[in-house]
């Protein structure tokens, strides 16, 4: 590799392989080198400390060392004064200072893995391989750069060193070096040692196995352990380490069974039977179900296919022969089993993404090679290969024009061909501008032309694609009245001084119940979320009220007056269908209607402020609403009205029931309105009826009427407006008290009389007003106030 680290990371990221982090091992090791322990003596003043002399080639310092494992002849990591280390006790970065320990000067330090930042191990010093060159910089020996790459789920081939290397090779035009796989096979045929029966090929397209005898279980060599650690895995023993190493290298999870523990030397790949269970390697007994694929011997399950091995066939100190499994399992099956047992592993994470069924063989052969080389094993001749799921992948016919059509970028056929070939695709020219592309076996994600276009684009670089603006005619737009109405309504309510809020769509049952005085559920039982994150967010709201009241209560601590509204969906259950989502408006008010002022007394908002804000918005939508006295379970009786448009109820307005206010720990009174926007929609913006301006002046008369307290304003206005010549009516005073008889109230109106064709005379107006008064008297018992 000649490319600088950061450039490589950038090129990989452009191609879709972003390094979440880049860790540099040994980046700070400039004062640490390989040393040779030549002498170990007891410390004169301390039992547990020793004096260690280290040969560095050019000098031989002596240091005080407390490690129990230090011994003459070892190659160790020696830190000189000034070296940057990790403090073995605190774990914090530290710089090595000259020290006198119990009266003896220490001229440096022999380091543990923890002090070098390699691992958390501080039980003893790090012992380097015997062939480590004395005096060499430790960074040259153990230094490394680790790219922690975030592999997208479509690229399981890149969950391996070889996969990434292929990408780097294509991106940098550097040749790819794959491990040379060759090993000595024993005389014994594997078929004579074991057999494999794939009973459920739908879940196991391929099962390969090899047998190694005479293995000696022990620790893996240093280099292998270090590479495993760099890959985030813990070394266990040589056999297990080799399976993990090959998984990191090739991307194929492998499993080693203790050959001696397999009943009848037989592997059966089948679904679990009712009532079977398996104790997995982590010691937990797992009950199995009939959908789970297991690896069994002739008697019992010995592993969960693709997820984890079983304790009953685990490789141990006593193991002398292993059966190595390298198989391909159906990704959905592995995913479901791992999820059902809540045991995701490095293996299942790979199988879940859909590995190539061609991968098991090279991976198995590589593992066999390492078993022979590193575990002293003897490989049985050949491998077992049961491949019921073999399928041909036909070549993709790929016109060169596709890159132009989808990318908008002209690329010569030769360039397309060479990019694809650099990634391992086989390209043949079927016609001058028509390619026939064979997909390499490891690319399970490529199946059609668009996939090849992406391959070309990501290697060429998305930054090479030109930037254009669509120049086709703009497609016809369909009007959306609901959207425009929501937008206008929102603006109008904001203009009326209300704050828009957006609240959670999910709520607890209790939250909904709080909107009624006796904590009953308002409306139908709401739709429930199956896996709620908490009880607070368990049901789909059937009302906007509870959250609005909650936020009123929550903000009361900081505010003198609150006006909130929300436009959002409520969800009603439907039989055998998605819930009905209804666009709803809800507004709520509490406290001072305006900020405190030096000019006006602080006035609390009331029913009429809520009504005014809503009406202002409705009028601007061209909607004339009537308010009809009504009852609503959450609102105070006598302070509640249906909002009616053209005879149809579209919503409700009123004072929130004091018990409901209390249910939310809020201070009252709170006033609220609620509208079903889908019922409002047909009435909104229904056109303007233009009238020419009046040519003759209006005559204005004021009239105060005394009526019973129970007579509604609306009933008076309805009568007044019914008379000819009345062009406008306005109420300017409502009074009840000492000036009118008990049980009565006075309403003062200003009435405009106007004719389209002449100026009215006093007599005409008087006549209308006389008839109006007698109608009001006979129908409502109204009399003119004296």
């Amino acid at each position, binding site marked *: 590799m000649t490319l600088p680290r950061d450039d490589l990371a950038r090129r990989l*990221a452009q191609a879709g392989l972003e390094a979440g982090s880049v860790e540099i091992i040994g980046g700070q090791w400039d004062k640490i080198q390989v040393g040779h322990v030549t002498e170990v003596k007891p410390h004169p003043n301390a039992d547990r400390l020793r004096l260690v002399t280290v040969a560095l080639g050019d000098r031989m310092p002596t240091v005080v060392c407390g490690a129990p494992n230090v011994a003459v002849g070892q190659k160790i990591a020696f830190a000189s004064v000034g070296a940057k280390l990790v403090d073995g006790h605190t774990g914090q970065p530290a710089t090595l200072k000259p020290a006198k320990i119990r009266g003896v000067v220490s001229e440096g330090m022999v380091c543990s893995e923890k002090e070098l930042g390699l691992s958390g191990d501080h039980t003893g010093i790090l012992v380097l391989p015997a062939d480590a060159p004395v005096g060499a910089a430790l960074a040259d020996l153990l230094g490394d750069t680790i790219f922690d790459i975030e592999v997208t789920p479509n690229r399981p081939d890149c969950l391996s060193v070889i996969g990434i290397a292929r990408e780097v090779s294509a991106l940098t035009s550097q040749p790819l070096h794959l491990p040379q796989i060759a090993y000595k096979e024993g005389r014994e045929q594997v078929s004579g040692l074991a057999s494999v029966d794939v009973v459920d090929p739908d879940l196991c397209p391929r099962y390969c196995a090899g047998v190694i005898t005479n293995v000696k279980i022990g620790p893996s060599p240093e280099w292998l352990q270090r590479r495993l650690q760099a890959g985030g895995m813990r070394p266990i023993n040589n056999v297990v380490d080799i399976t993990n190493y090959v998984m990191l290298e090739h991307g194929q999870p492998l499993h080693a069974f203790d050959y001696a523990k397999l009943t009848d030397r037989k592997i059966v790949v089948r679904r679990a039977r009712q009532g079977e269970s398996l104790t997995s390697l982590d010691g937990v007994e797992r009950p199995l179900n009939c959908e789970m694929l297991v690896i069994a011997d002739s008697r019992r399950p010995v592993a969960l296919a693709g997820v984890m091995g079983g304790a009953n066939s685990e490789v141990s100190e006593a193991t002398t022969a292993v059966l190595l499994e390298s198989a391909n399992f159906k990704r959905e099956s592995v995913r479901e089993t791992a999820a059902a047992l809540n045991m995701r592993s490095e293996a299942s994470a790979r199988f879940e993404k859909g590995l190539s069924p061609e991968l098991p063989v090279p991976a198995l052969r590589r593992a066999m090679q390492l078993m022979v080389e590193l575990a002293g094993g003897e490989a049985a001749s050949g491998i077992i290969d049961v491949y019921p799921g073999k399928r041909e992948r036909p070549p993709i016919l790929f016109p060169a024009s596709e890159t132009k*059509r989808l990318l908008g970028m002209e690329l010569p056929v030769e360039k397309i061909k060479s990019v694809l070939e650099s990634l391992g695709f086989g390209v043949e020219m079927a016609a001058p501008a028509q390619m026939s592309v064979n997909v390499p076996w490891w690319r399970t994600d490529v199946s059609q032309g668009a996939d090849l276009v992406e391959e070309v*684009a990501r290697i060429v670089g998305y930054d090479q694609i030109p930037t254009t603006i669509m120049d086709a005619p703009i497609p016809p737009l369909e009007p959306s009245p609901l959207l425009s109405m929501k937008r206008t309504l929102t603006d109008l309510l904001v203009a009326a001084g209300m*704050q828009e809020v957006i609240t959670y769509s999910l709520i607890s049952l209790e939250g909904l119940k709080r909107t009624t005085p006796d904590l009953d559920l308002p409306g139908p039982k709401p739709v429930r979320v199956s896996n709620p994150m908490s009880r607070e967010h368990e049901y789909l709201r059937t009302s906007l009220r509870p959250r609005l009241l909650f936020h009123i209560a929550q903000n009361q601590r*900081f505010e003198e007056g609150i006006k909130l509204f929300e436009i959002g969906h409520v969800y009603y259950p439907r039989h055998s269908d998605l819930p009905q989502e209804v666009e709803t408006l809800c507004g709520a008010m509490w406290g001072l209607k305006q900020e405190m002022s030096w000019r006006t007394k602080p006035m609390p908002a009331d029913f009429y402020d809520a009504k005014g804000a809503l009406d202002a918005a409705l009028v601007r939508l061209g909607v004339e609403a009537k308010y009809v006295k009504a009852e609503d379970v959450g609102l105070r009786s006598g302070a509640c009205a249906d909002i009616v448009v053209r005879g149809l109820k579209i919503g409700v307005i009123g004072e929130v029931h004091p018990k409901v206010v209390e249910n939310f720990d809020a201070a009252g009174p709170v006033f609220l309105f609620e509208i079903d926007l889908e019922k409002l929609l047909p009435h909104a913006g229904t056109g303007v009826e233009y009238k020419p301006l009046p040519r003759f002046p209006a005559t204005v008369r004021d009239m105060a009427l005394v009526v019973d307290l129970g007579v509604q304003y609306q009933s008076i206005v309805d009568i007044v407006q019914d008379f000819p010549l009345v062009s406008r009516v306005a109420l300017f005073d409502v009074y009840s008290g000492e000036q009118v008889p008990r049980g009565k109230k006075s309403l003062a109106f200003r009435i405009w009389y106007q004719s389209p064709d002449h100026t009215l005379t006093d007599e005409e107006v008087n006549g209308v007003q006389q008839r109006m008064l007698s109608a009001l008297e006979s129908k409502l018992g109204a009399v003119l106030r004296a």
Partner: protein
Amino acid sequence: MIDKLSQLKTVAETELNAVTDTRRLEEWRVRYLGKKSAIMQALRELSSLSLEERRKAGALANEVKDAFESSYKQKLEGIKQAELELATAAKALDVTLPGQPESLGRLHPTTQAMREVCQVFTSLGFETVEGPEVEWDYYNFEALNIPKGHPARDMWATLWVDFADPEKQRSMLMRTHTSPMQIRTMEKRRPPVRLIMPGKTYRYEATDVRHEWMFHQVEGLAIDKNITMADLKGTLFEFARRMFGADRKARFRCDYFPFVEPGVEVAIDCFICKGQGCRLCSGSGWIEILGAGMVHPDVLRRMDCDPAVYSGFAFGMGVERIPMLRYGIEDIRHFYGNDLRFLKQFWGF
């Protein structure tokens, strides 16, 4: 008489000097210029004097009268001016007193950002469409190339909704993204289309400063003949410039979403540090703002569009992220906590 007149003049002028208001001035005028005043008296008495005395005294009397009249006028002007000044001073306003407060409402910051995004795309010929938040698995996943058991399902932790399907075929969920609207809308439309589809989305996710289980997305979809990735780049570049500033640079990288191919991750250069690296962009100089790509041929087929004839691009972005980046909001949970002390900060201009 001459002596008397001289004396009168001295006295009258001394008195006049002491006058400060109109009432006193009027008293003075009556006293020294009225019919019964000394000067008028003197003028009437002139006839009783000798010719020579009459001439001398007459001239002096007239002189004194003229002087009184002009002093009076002058004084009157002065007093009126002073009174006017006094009255004006009394009527002067404290212009710094607060005006009559009007109730002020504001749009929720999410709505503000959503509108801004939609406005940009509206101006590019995109039409806005909305749809349901509770979805079938089919629209949210399967039709988007994410069948059951697909590894990419892990990219969207899902809130499932109780639903007992008699045929056990369908499952219901809270949509995890706005992408199901691509399929839903295209069931009713034929290309060419340019659509944006804003709305609420949900994830099964523990909340923290950067994660919220309910949030908003805007989905975009354009399908026509000859739509290319260059068009996608141009459209999103234009969007980035209009949203985040005309000097923004945009970065397009390969990324994976099962329903597009090729897939794109779009980032803009950090508008705080201009690409130098800062806390906002985690030192990278770039801020990822959306995912996009060319509509996958299998998805086009499900939309009943022949992928050999039609092509298109799709994109999706989180909405809350925009005000978070722009205003430096440190905790996404503020959005739906609805603390008015938070909401009132966003004017929406």
